[in-house]
Structure formats: structure tokens, C-alpha cells
């Protein structure tokens, strides 16, 4: 009888769960956590293989909120004990989700948040960006206020961020997004790494260098021209292996030999429309 009651409860929860309206799903192939194809993880042991390998993202309406779940290939660990610094139960990952809510050319922002070294085309400019970070709300908000002042009104910090197994979970208020997720929106999910001691202009992002270091990604450039993006959704975001190439193409960049970013070509990120 005890077991029966458990089954009833779980079934009820499952049915209730399935009853939610819209679920947007983006999938990404495994093993493409190499940015434009050349990036390597930092060499320190905490950066386990698969830790930045995006595999699936879902957006699900739930009342006045949207539940965003970001799944990666490896179990998410907390090697730097985030509870000790007011964090959210994980340490390494930092996900930025850019949303094009109106698909209108010229509307929104073409530049990314500082530290990514990438941009969007004016056709795919974003209106909102959701930050899924291990940092507590205060820290995150103060970083945004200090380093992305012009964009801060369009930066959404989840009401709650948590982790379970391989999945990061964020509860975002629909009011903060402007509305519930709707058909026709564009999505770009960028996987970065949380850097608690970032460069002065970077918004909690970890850099990519030419040569990997204990706490730096490698395979990029020592100048500020390479995209600091380890994984992202590309192509049709259906998990097709071809999307690895689409990602590499999207993250192509060129560096001026003298380090002049103005003469370099930054990567242009695509949106995936659903």
C-alpha cells in the first residue's frame, strides 16, 4: 500500500509535469566542446572532460515562470565549494542564453556581454540574455552593473539557479523576459566557464589562450580576437553531427598580427529560431 501511494504521487507529478504548455528544446552534438574546433580545456584536474559540452537545452513555461534546463555531457561538480561563497551548487560552468524575441533587424543588441569576444549580426540581435552562473545574485548583479551598464536592463538573472546531476536549472520570471517564451523566438546558448577573478573588463568569463594553462583554455589566440566560447548551439540545434561544423564556421575569427581588435574579425553568432 505504501508503494502504491508513492506510485500515485509520482504519476500525478508526471501528469502535472506533462500538462505544461510549450516546451522548446535545443539539442547539441556531443564532443563539440572545442569552440571553433581547436579549443582545449584548461589543464587543472577540476576541468573534467565533458564539463563544458552542451547537449540539450529546454525552455518550459510554468505559470508566471519559465524553467530553463541546460544539460551537459558530464556530471556537474562543485570543486570550489560554491556554498562557501554564496553560490548555487556548482563552480565551473557559466551559461549565457541570448534571446531574439522579435526577429526585427536592428532591434536589440549586437554586442555580447563583455568577455566573449563575439557579436551578433543586426538581423539576429538579442533583446534579453539570461545568465546561469554559479555566482550568487548579488555578485552577478554587481558585475553586470559594473561591466555591462548599458545592457543591464536586458540582462536577466534567474529567480533561482540550481544543479542536479548533469543539468543546470534556472527559474526565470516571464516578466523579466518580457513574456513567456513564444514561437518564433531566436535562441543562442553560449557555454563559458565561471571565472571568479576575471579580467577587469570581462563579465566573469574565463579566457582562451593560444596555449592551455591550468586555468585557461587553449587553442585560441593570445590576443583579444578569438571567441571565448567553448560550446554553443548551431545549425538547426537538433543534435545532428553536422552542427559541429556549423559551430566551427560560426566561430571563425581572424586576428590582426599587432593585436588591433579593430582590424580583427570577431566571430558572429547565429540565432536558432523555433
Amino acid at each position, binding site marked *: 500500500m505504501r508503494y502504491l501511494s508513492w506510485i500515485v504521487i*509520482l504519476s500525478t*507529478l*508526471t501528469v502535472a*509535469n506533462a500538462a505544461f504548455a510549450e516546451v522548446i528544446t535545443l539539442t547539441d552534438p556531443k*564532443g563539440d566542446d572545442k569552440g571553433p574546433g581547436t579549443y*582545449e*580545456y584548461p*589543464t*587543472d*584536474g*577540476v576541468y*573534467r*572532460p*565533458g564539463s563544458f559540452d552542451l547537449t540539450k537545452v529546454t525552455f518550459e513555461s*510554468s505559470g508566471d*515562470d519559465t*524553467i530553463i534546463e541546460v544539460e551537459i*555531457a558530464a*556530471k556537474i561538480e562543485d570543486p*570550489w*565549494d*560554491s556554498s*562557501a*561563497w*554564496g553560490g548555487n551548487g556548482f563552480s565551473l560552468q557559466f551559461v549565457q542564453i541570448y534571446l531574439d524575441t522579435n526577429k526585427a533587424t536592428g532591434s536589440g543588441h549586437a554586442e555580447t556581454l563583455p568577455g566573449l569576444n563575439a557579436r551578433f549580426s543586426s538581423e539576429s540581435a538579442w533583446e534579453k540574455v539570461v545568465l546561469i552562473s554559479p*555566482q*550568487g545574485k*548579488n*555578485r552577478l548583479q*554587481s558585475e553586470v*552593473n*559594473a561591466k555591462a551598464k548599458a545592457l543591464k536592463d536586458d540582462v536577466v538573472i534567474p*529567480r*533561482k539557479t*540550481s544543479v*542536479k*546531476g*548533469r543539468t543546470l536549472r534556472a*527559474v526565470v520570471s516571464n516578466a523579466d523576459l518580457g513574456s513567456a517564451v513564444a514561437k518564433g523566438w531566436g535562441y543562442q546558448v553560449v557555454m563559458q566557464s565561471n*571565472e*571568479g*577573478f*576575471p*579580467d*577587469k573588463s570581462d563579465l566573469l568569463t*574565463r*579566457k582562451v*589562450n*593560444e*596555449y*592551455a*594553462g*591550468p*586555468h*585557461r583554455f587553449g587553442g585560441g589566440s*593570445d*590576443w583579444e580576437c578569438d571567441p571565448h566560447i567553448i560550446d554553443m548551439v548551431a545549425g538547426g540545434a537538433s543534435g545532428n553531427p553536422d552542427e559541429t561544423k556549423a559551430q566551427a564556421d560560426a566561430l571563425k575569427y581572424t586576428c590582426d598580427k599587432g*593585436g588591433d*581588435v*579593430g582590424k580583427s574579425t570577431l566571430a558572429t553568432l547565429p540565432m536558432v529560431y523555433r
Partner: protein
Amino acid sequence: MFSTLPKWRTTREALEAEFRSSYQSDSSVMLNYRTGKTSRWMVAVAIGIFVVAIVSYVGPKFAYADIANIDLGASIYTKWLYRNNDSQGVLNLGNPFWPDNISGDNGVGSEFELRITGRLSQYVEAGARIQSRFGSLWQDWWENGDIGYDEHNTSGESLGMNHAQYMKLRGYYVRFAPPIPTIQWITVGASDLSMFNPWTIGKVRYIDRDNAKGTFVEGAVGDAREFSYNLAVIALPKLWVGPSWSTGIGDPTLVNPFYANDWAYGAKFQVNPDSWGRFELVGTVTNDLEIDTADPDAQGTIYPTCEDDLGNEVPGCQDNKNGAVGTFTRYLNAVLTLEAQLDPAEIVTINLLGGLSMQQLDPQLATNGVANSGGVFPVPFADIGFFDKSYAGRVRVELLDPFEVGLGMKFEYFNIGENWVSMFGARREADVLLTEGFLGGGQLPTLNLANEFVDFDEQWYESIVGWHGGTAIFDFEYNTFGISAEYTFITYNTNGQNRDVDFTYPTFLHSEGFTDIDVYDYANTLDRGRDPRSVYRRHQDRASHIAVVNADYVIDAGRGIEVGAKFKMIADTDKRSEDEESGDGIISGTTDDDYSGLLLHGKVSVAYPFTDELRIGVSAELDRWSEQNRDGLLLTDGDGNVTGANYGDTDTDKEKVSATIRYDFEGVHLNYLFEYIHKFQNRELKPDQNFHIVQGKATVEVSW
């Protein structure tokens, strides 16, 4: 945007990564890049013009001058600590063994830190950190030390350097990536030792983050680092990795402690065959050497002339007179762990860990602290073999929302042998078990814990040597509501009768009763209960049950009201002395000493972010502890036979309210914690105790 230098020359990230990135303290993290006071702009412009002119003139000759290769980072940290008592200092719990010049409950002090890194190329990097000595109070005008004059003196100065806030070199390293197959980096100098694990050589605590020095090699094979390795030779800290927390310093058995050749050796090999699993083998050895005082070449040798006290020639001594000094091992500890992380399916992860340990301890070179220091000693005073109940095992299975309703499950089995010994394991700031444990902090597999040099708001760590049991945790999330429930059962491999706690197994003096981390003192003058390191008792038959429920919810009002609730229950029993069969027959025990403790703890909290920068929280906690036969004496006859017991009950009531304020603004971080604690201890055998504690801690931190 124009960048004149590559990013490894223009950021301080590399330096921070080395010194701090594996400690994500949420303070001292923002950059303050305000440009200075506008009233000085003309001076700044003039200086700028002058510099540009000079650079334009000689620029090509030093385009990459030394200064361009240096990144600087700095922090100022200030702490206020106040409590309604009369002790002075800026650290609640300092050194447990002898008085230090920092600890005390009332004071305000600051420290300054400077971090310097340079990159010669992408293959070579060097760095150093210097920091002022902490402990001086703001009131200490003109203070340059704490050694006072023998006679009355009104100068306000003292004779030492301890409070002089002098800058001290804390850490330094050189790292390079030579073109040697498989080697990625070689590091010479400081490290936080995070490359191993808490069971073997643990990451050192934050305040010691660059005190460890050694030579470290890391390498890998394969595009995806399918095989990687770390090798290390580490200088043994002379003041804690060894018997009596030293490698010989202060040990009365040694006339000339020789610590310059004491090293730890570590190797880690990791295989990542695919995303479904990872295997990690770690082996470490710590070796504390002392000189052979019978060697005629040794400094302070007992045979300088190769003759004994009676003038007789010492056999073989002359042959040893060769200019070389022999050594003996005072203490050796070897630990081996094999860990497998398996991800066989989307909804399951499995972690397996097994370990073996051993130690060799020379009783002629190490004082028996179990016998001579009242049982305060960081390891059993005995040789322990690899298969002498010195194992450790842990199996962890996690089900990741198998029903897709937000319900996760974690199960863990743990079994740590009674003789598991890890002298260089993690001392704090790590946690190897899922359970919240008795203290709500971390559980670590060593007796060499460090619940010292801490303030009242910091986590506590308890030893799990001898723990055998299991944990089940269920957690559920729905929107912004989350709840988790834990049940843990522990029995103890240290259970047994007539354990030798006089010469072999350390008890840390105080082994009875629930530990009160709110009203703690090292000497136990406040009756704070069991020492978190006390895992051995003369007579023990103990079992424990821990149940915890945590819930949190963000109410959708305004900026989101964060509420939380917690309930915890511990039921702990110990039959202590029991009848035991031996070769001489049955040794009688008694039921008069049977312990039964019930701890109930509840907490509610609410917090609200009033602005982007300001967050205020309040909480209330209630504790009701009922302990039968908490402490007392076992009565024995002249032959050591148990004849009865005189144990008394204790009931403890405790209430705590606290408030937190956090303010983050443009790189300045302010934190404030206020607590009021009332505790009443109703003791059967001793006078009752009543505590009213009002305490606060505030910090301001800025980095640039």
C-alpha cells in the same frame, strides 16, 4: 578598442588563477577601476604627456620592457570582530595549543595584499604574492610588535614584529611548458596542492593557499587528454604534517630536528576512456627523516670520538666516519586511492572509491603524544600496515531525476577502517561524504583536522575515521521551491572494548556529548562536548542516526523573497562498557554508563534583495538536546574491572537569532553578520550553565 598587448600580458587573471581561482571566495573579487579624483586630472595629463614623449623617443628600444611584462593585482581586507566579552584580537579561535598574538573576540584589523605575475612567453610564467601580516588592531598606533618592555613604559611601542603589519613573501612560482613529449607544465614553487584528493594529499586551506612549495609536473596524452598524470615532490610543512603536528620541531625526543630533507611525494594517473567514465589512481608518501645521532659525522652526535661513556670503542663507528650523515625515518605515511566515476546511463552516475593506507612511526624519534599529551595526537602511535584495518571505501550512486518530475536521489555507502591514516589529507574546506554529519560542515578522513584560525561564522569539519554506514538523500524541485531529505545511519569500526587509549589511540581528551560549535573553546572549559577529531574511546558500542530536511522557496514578490527552513534530528547511542569475552573469561561491563542523546534543531530564514547591491537576511534557530549519561566516570576496582558508573544527564536549550547584510557596489564588498545566542545547560553532575552571547563580524574587501 585597441589592444597593444596580448591578453596574457594585460590581465591579472593568470595570477589570480594561480593564487586564488580554486578558492572562489565571493569577496575580494571585483575590480575597482575608478580612475581617480578629477581634481588631479591636470597632473595626470602632464605625467601622461611626459611618459608618451619619453616612450615616443625611446619606444622601439623597450617596446617589451620589463614593466610591460608585469601584471599587478592588489586587495585590502578589513575585518571587525566584536563580542560581549573582554578578549582582544581579530580571530575567534586561534592556535589551540599556545597563545598567539592574533586571536580574540574584539578588534578591527586590516591587511594588504599584492600579487605580481609576469609572462615571458606563452610557455613561461612566474608569479609571487606578498601580504601584510594580519593581527594588528587599528588602535595599534606606532605598534611594531607585541614583545613588551619589562619595565613600565608609556611609549606605546613594543619590541617585536608581530603586530608591525610587515609585508611577507607568501608564495612564488615559476611555470614553464618545455617541449618534452606529454609534459604540459612544470611548476616550481608554490601550489595549493589541489591536484590530488582529500584522502591523500588534500588541497590546503585558503589561508595557506600558497604556503606549500614543491616541484610539480603535469602531462597528458591524447587530443582529449585521454590519459593524464601529475607528479609532485612537496616540502613537508614542518609544523603540521607529522607526529605531534611537526616533523620534529618541539619534539622533546629530538635534540636537533632535521626537517630540510622532509618531503612528500605524489603521483596521480587519470584515464578518461570516454564520456562514460573516468578512473583515477593516486598514490602519496610523506617521509619525515631525522639524522642518526649515533653517526659520528652528525651534528651533536653521541659518539664524536667513536667511544662510549666508558671509553670503549663503539663497534663499526670508525667505518662510519666518512663525512656522510645517515638518516632514519621518524614518520612515514603512504596512501593509495583508486576512484572510478561511471556514467552508464543518462539518469545514473556511480562513483566508486577505494583506498589503503599505512604508517611507520619510530617511537625513538617521536614523543608519544597519546601518553604524554593527554591523548592529543594526530595519528595512532603505532606502525600500521596496508592491510591492518587501514582501508577506506565509498560507493555513491545518484539517480538524476529518473521520473522526470524534478526528483533526484543519492545513495552512499561508506566504510573507513579504524586505522585509516592520512597525515597530509585535507584538513578543512573539503567534504568527502554526502551527509551533513553532526556538525553541518564537512567530513574528512583524517585526525589532522584544522578547526582553528577561524571565526564563528565558518564551517566545522569532523573526522570520519572508523565511520561505517550509509546515506540516502532525496531532493525535489518545483519552480522555485526545493526540498531535500537526508537519512544517514552510522555505526563505527572503532567500536570495541578496552581499546588502548593510554599509549596507542588518541582520544583528544574530550569524547562525550554533542559538540556545540556555537560555544566552543579548545580547552573545553565551557563543556562544549566532543572534539570533532575524537573517534577513539576505551569502551565504545556506538550507533548514530541523522535525519535532515531542508526546504527553500523564492516567493514571487518584489525582487523575490527567499525563505528557508531546516529541521535536523540526531539520535546517538553508545553502550560504552559492555561484557566482553577474553581469554581470561568475561570482562564485565555496565549498563550504568549507556549514553543516549537526542538532538533536535530547527531553523527558519528569510532574505530579501532590497536593491541590486543590498541584500538583508534574518534567521532564527532553536536547539533542544537531551542527553542521558552524557559524561561522567566509569568506576573500576583495583584490578580494572568495571564495578559501576557515575554518569550524569544533560539537557541543553539553545536559541539563536542572526542577521546578515551584504552590500556589493562597484567592486567594494561589505558583509555583516550579527548573532545573539542564548544557551542553557542543565547538568546533573555539575552546576548549570547559562550563556548570553552577542557577537558580530563585518568585512570590507576591495581588489583592483
